[in-house]
């Protein structure tokens, strides 16, 4: 319902600008965005900014406590692990494993999902009905279970985990994209465009894509948070990144047996996973609100 406006003002700013205006009004979303960008930058620059070699084992400095305790060293802000490796460097390196690989996973799933979702959404009849049934099956199997089964077939490792999670995320992407396309195809302007002689590709590229990208971004943020949690969970279970890779979930399970001696080595990687997922979720929520408000105005 449009509101009564006293002055007739033209509001012709581009959708992206309008969205950004609504987005930056929300403090929590902006905080999330800043966190997200910093995680992104760290994951890109990780090899250059680690203060120490994350795999270098210093024999003299085993299980050094964090620098805020009296026995800590200022060169090792988070201390070292039981092999004398610097925890801060390992965590920075871990950003590219947990966070970076989550981004790669979601990008891959998005591209595949866009292709399959477009095929499913644009096709009709038996083809689409068979496809939908297969999707329904894939959606009912929990994503982590699917990932675990794929890892059981292919064997553990970070690369296999990435593929597994990509495949496990795919059904929900395809489902979401297909529904979005279905909704778009019902619009009157699509029919008008078709009457003008547009073929399927024209409709898809000119009408559907520009209208579903907002839904896509929300799907992507949800996908990233799932991917981070799944990569970390698989790493924690020992199916994902293998030692000595410093993936955050694997780091937690590595330091589990030291939980009495060095509780911070369990607490800090978990806190990182938590804040990475939180930043993604905050951005996702902010986007959702911004889109809603943009549509209303």
């Amino acid at each position: 319902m449009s509101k009564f406006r006293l002055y007739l003002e033209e509001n012709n700013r581009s959708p992206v600008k309008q969205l950004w205006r609504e987005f930056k009004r929300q403090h929590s979303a902006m905080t999330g965005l800043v966190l997200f960008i910093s995680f992104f930058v760290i994951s890109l620059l990780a090899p250059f900014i680690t203060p120490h070699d994350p795999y270098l084992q210093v024999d003299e400095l085993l299980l050094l406590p964090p620098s805020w305790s009296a026995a800590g060293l200022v060169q090792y802000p988070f201390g070292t692990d039981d092999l004398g490796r610097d925890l801060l460097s390992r965590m920075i390196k871990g950003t590219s494993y947990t966070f970076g690989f989550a981004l790669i996973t979601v990008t891959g799933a998005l591209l595949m999902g866009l292709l399959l979702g477009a095929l499913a959404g644009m096709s009709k009849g038996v083809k689409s009905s068979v496809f939908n049934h297969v999707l329904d099956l894939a959606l009912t199997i929990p994503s982590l279970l699917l990932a675990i089964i794929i890892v059981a077939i292919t064997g553990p490792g970070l690369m296999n985990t990435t593929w597994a999670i990509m495949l496990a995320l795919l059904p929900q992407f395809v489902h979401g994209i297909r529904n979005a396309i279905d909704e778009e195809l019902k619009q009157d302007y699509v029919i008008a465009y078709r009457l003008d002689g547009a073929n399927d590709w024209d409709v898809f590229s000119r009408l559907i894509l520009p209208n579903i990208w907002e839904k896509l971004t929300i799907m992507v943020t949800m996908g990233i948070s799932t991917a981070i949690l799944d990569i970390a969970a698989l790493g924690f279970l020992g199916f994902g990144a293998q030692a000595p890779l410093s993936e955050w979930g694997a780091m937690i399970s590595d330091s589990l047996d030291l939980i009495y001696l060095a509780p911070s080595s369990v607490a800090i990687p978990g806190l990182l996973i938590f804040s990475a997922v939180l930043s993604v979720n905050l951005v996702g929520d902010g986007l959702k609100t911004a889109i809603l408000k943009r549509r209303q105005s």
Partner: protein
Amino acid sequence: MSRYLLRRLYLMAFVFLALSLFAFSLGYLFPGDVIQNLSGLRQIDDEQRQQLINYYQLDQNYLQQYLAFLSRIAQGNWGLSFASQQPLLQEIKLLLPATLELTAYALLLSFILGIPLGIVAAFKPHSLIGKSISALAIAGYSLPIFWWGLLLIMLFSLALGWLPSAGRLGVLYEIPHSSGFMLVDILQADVKYRSEAFHNALRHLLLPTIVLATFPTTVMIRFVRDAMLNVWEQNYIKTAQAKGLSRGQVLYRHGLRNALLPVIRQIGLQFSTLITLAMLTEVIFSWPGIGRWLIDSIYQRNYPAIQAGLLVISTMVITINMLTEILHALFNPLARRG
């Protein structure tokens, strides 16, 4: 309605067909010897091998093998576990109630907490209470569950020593196994220490349930809150208000009924996530359920067990999904068309 039911049943039959095909192909996809993967036997001599090839009809074409697989599943002949050399179906029957018990309590807790909190958050979205509930929900939504479980163990079991950190029941108590659901078993058991055992079982349940319930509760809060806010914008709410109903009446008669309808469907959608999270929770709290068993099976390369676990868990998830969809359609005539 009957047409809707027929369509659903047809869909379910198709999904089960596809699932059985997938499970069937797993026996061939897993690394190692196909006969070993199918039977679960570790040592097979030549004579036995010939027998097994006949039994599994491996010399026939794939269609025959698939039909043989289906009839084996229907007869309850699921093969042996690599690790224990016990029949898989028996093992699963012992383990499944533990998982179901934990999941059921977590789901219940998520409803008891999630729905009222969601309504409160929607009622005053800009007040301090509403905002803090939303903040709490998004924080809980982002928690990695294994870390959250470890934190609670560190605090309540290691530092404070209030609650046990592992298992379903203290080793002091012995409860005869009847239904597999610990609380029910204790209540039925004819032992002197019944109330102590019950108390002990509850203490064991508390931490895993809280950990497992965290994610669904936050999802529920967010879902109910969004649904309430959405319904509150509708025109029939304005009509009801204009007719002079009090706020409580509008909320109860028009708001809640419409906002809580999709929640039924949410149970089905939540259930599959819940099972996944239950696997992690069981690993952390050494809960003897099917999730921990499945993950142990992967460590041990126990392929027959992985296959059986997949079948059981997926069947459970699909059935619950379908039931909630049908329930939803029963309550909401508009959903029957789809």
